[in-house]
C-alpha cells in the first residue's frame, strides 16, 4: 500500500481539484488503482464538496485541554499570570476579582496548574472538531471538520490519515490519496509523514514558485520523494519555464502541465471532479496524463 500526499505550499493552487480528479481516475480511469481517500486539510476541508460523500460514521475529536480556574478557590495571588508565557491568563478586571483564562489563547501547557498554590486550576479537554468516515462516489473517504478557532489541527490530520491507512490495509487497497493543507508547518508535517510520494501542485506565479521551493525543501527534509505538477500553466508561461528549470536542476520530475481552464470551476460548481464533468476539456486531458505518471510512481516511487 502506497501513500500519496498532494501539497502546494501556497494555498489555492488547485490541490483539491487535482486530488478529486485523481480519485475519479483511480476509480474509473484508464489506470485503475484501488484507493482510500483522505482530506488532510482539516482547517478548510473541500474535497467532500466534489465527491458527494454519504457519511457512515461521525466521531468527536478531542484536541487539547485548556486551563480553567475555579473562582471559589482562587486567592488572586497571580502566580498563574506570572508563569503563563502565552498571555492567556487575564488579571482581575471589570468587576471580576479573580484571575481567568482566555481559552482561545491557552496553549494547554498546564504550567499554571502545577504552580497554583491553591490547586484551583484544572485542565479541561476541549471538543475541537469531528472526523468522518464516508462512502464517496470514488471509494471510502476520511475527512474532518475542525471547529472554528480551534487548535491541534496537526493531531486531527494524523488521525484522519491513520484511519484511512488502517482501512486501506484492512481491505487490501493499493493506495491512500491524501489531499494536504497549504503551508509547511504542523498540519503539513503531519500530512507528509509516512507518505511514499508527494505531488506538489505549483502555480507559475511569483508567490506560487516561492512557496513551491519551500515545500520541496520540506519534502526533502523529511526524505519524501516529490513530483511537481504545474497548474494554470499558461497564465504566466515564463513562470512555468522557471518551475521547469528549477525542477531540472533539483532533479525533480514535472509530471503535468495543466492549462488554465474554466471547466475546472464549472465542475466545482456542479460538485464534480473536472475529469468526470468534462473529460475532454484541456484540464481533464492534462490531469489524465499526469495521473498515468503518478500512478506508475505509486508502484515504484522515484529515489
Amino acid at each position, binding site marked *: 500500500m502506497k501513500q500519496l500526499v498532494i501539497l502546494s505550499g501556497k494555498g489555492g493552487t488547485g490541490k483539491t481539484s487535482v486530488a478529486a480528479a485523481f480519485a475519479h481516475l483511480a476509480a474509473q480511469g484508464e489506470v485503475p488503482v484501488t484507493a482510500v481517500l483522505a482530506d488532510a486539510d482539516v482547517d478548510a476541508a*473541500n474535497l467532500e*464538496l*466534489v465527491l458527494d460523500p454519504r457519511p457512515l460514521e461521525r466521531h468527536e475529536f478531542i484536541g487539547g*485541554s485548556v486551563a480553567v480556574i475555579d473562582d471559589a478557590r482562587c486567592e488572586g495571588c497571580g502566580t498563574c499570570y506570572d508563569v503563563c508565557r502565552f498571555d492567556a491568563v487575564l488579571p482581575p478586571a471589570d468587576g471580576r476579582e479573580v484571575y481567568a483564562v482566555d481559552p*482561545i489563547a491557552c496553549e494547554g501547557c498546564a504550567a499554571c496548574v*502545577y504552580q497554583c498554590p491553591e490547586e484551583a486550576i484544572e485542565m479541561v479537554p476541549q471538543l475541537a472538531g469531528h472526523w468522518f468516515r464516508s462512502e464517496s462516489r470514488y471509494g471510502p473517504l476520511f475527512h474532518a471538520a475542525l471547529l472554528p478557532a480551534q487548535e491541534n489541527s496537526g493531531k486531527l490530520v494524523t488521525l484522519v490519515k491513520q484511519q484511512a491507512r488502517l482501512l486501506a490495509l484492512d481491505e487490501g487497497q493499493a493506495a491512500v490519496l491524501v489531499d494536504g493543507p497549504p503551508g509547511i508547518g504542523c498540519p503539513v*508535517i503531519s500530512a507528509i509523514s509516512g507518505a511514499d510520494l508527494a505531488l506538489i501542485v505549483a502555480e507559475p506565479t*511569483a508567490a506560487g514558485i516561492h512557496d513551491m521551493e519551500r515545500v520541496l525543501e520540506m519534502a526533502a527534509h523529511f526524505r519524501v520523494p516529490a513530483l511537481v505538477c504545474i497548474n494554470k500553466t499558461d497564465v504566466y508561461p515564463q513562470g512555468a519555464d522557471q518551475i521547469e528549470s528549477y525542477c531540472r536542476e533539483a532533479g525533480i520530475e514535472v509530471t503535468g502541465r495543466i492549462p488554465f481552464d*474554466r471547466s475546472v470551476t464549472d465542475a466545482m460548481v456542479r460538485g464534480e471532479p473536472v475529469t468526470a464533468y468534462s473529460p475532454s476539456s484541456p484540464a481533464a486531458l492534462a490531469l489524465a496524463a499526469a495521473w498515468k505518471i503518478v500512478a506508475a510512481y505509486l508502484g515504484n516511487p522515484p529515489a
Partner: protein
Amino acid sequence: MKIVVASGKGGTGKTTVATSLALSLAVDEPGQPVSQAPTYLDCDVEGPNAHLFLAPTFEQRQAVEIRIPRVDEAKCTGCGKCAEVCQYHAIVVLGKRTLVFPQLCHGCGSCTLVCPQGAITEEPHAIGVLEAGPAARSISFARGVLDVGEPMATPAIRQLKRWAIPGDESLVILDAPPGTSCPVVETLRGADYLLLVTEPTPFGLHDLRLAAEVAAELGIPAGVIINRDGIGDAGVDAFCAAAGLPVLMRIPFERAIAEGVAQGRTLVEIRPEYAPRFRTLLQQINMQVDSLSRAKK
C-alpha cells in the same frame, strides 16, 4: 487601527488585496498628505509572499526563538517530574537519562519550574526569523519566516506582532495565513477588523463561512471582498446577504490581472483605478467599526 486580511481558503487573493490596500493608503490624497504610511505585517510565516510585491529592504533581523529545556545531567536524579508535567511529550526520562525533543516543545517552561533539583535551565532554540525594513512608498514592512521542518507557526506570528506593531494608533495591515486554526487566530488577536477575501466558488464559500465563524467567535467585525468575480456561482453573495456581511469590493476575473499578479505586480499597478477604491474601503471599514463600538456603548 489593525486590519487583518484573511480568507479561510488559500489562494483567494489575500496578499493581492493587502498589498494594494497598503500602497493605496500610503500615497497622498489630493491636498491631504499622509502623515504616516501604514505598517504591513506578513503573518503567513509558512509561505510569506508579500515581499515579492512590496520590495522591502530588510534592515533589522531577529531570531524567532522558543526557550527549550536543557538538563544538567550532574544534577538530574531521573525523578521524571518534568516528563509528568509536559503536555507535549517533549521531555522523557529513560532510566537515568532525560531527553528533550525540541520540535515537540512549546517553550512553556513548566518542566523548569517543577524540577526539584533545579537541574533544568532553558536555552533559546531558533525556529525562524523576523525581518523588517522600509518598503515601497515608505510602508514599514515586517515579516516572519518559519524555518523549514519547524512545525509551530504560532510563536513566529506572536513574536512578529510584538516586535513590529507600533505602540500608537497608526494603521497596521496584517496579511494572514490561510486556514481557520491557531495561526489565523494568533494573527487575529487584538485586531479591530477582519477583511475577508473570497472567490465566488463552492470552495470559496465553504471556507468563507468558516472564517466568518472565527470572526464571530472572536467578536471581530468583518467585511468581504469578492475576488475573481464572474467565475463560479452566486452562493457567496447569498451567504453574505444572509449573514449580514457587507460586500465591500468586487474584483472581476480578468486575465490581465491574473497575469500581472503572476509576474509579481500589484493590483494597483495593473489597475490604478483601484487606489481610490481602496481609500474608500478604509472609510467604510472605519464607519463600520465606529458604529459597532457606539452600539456597544
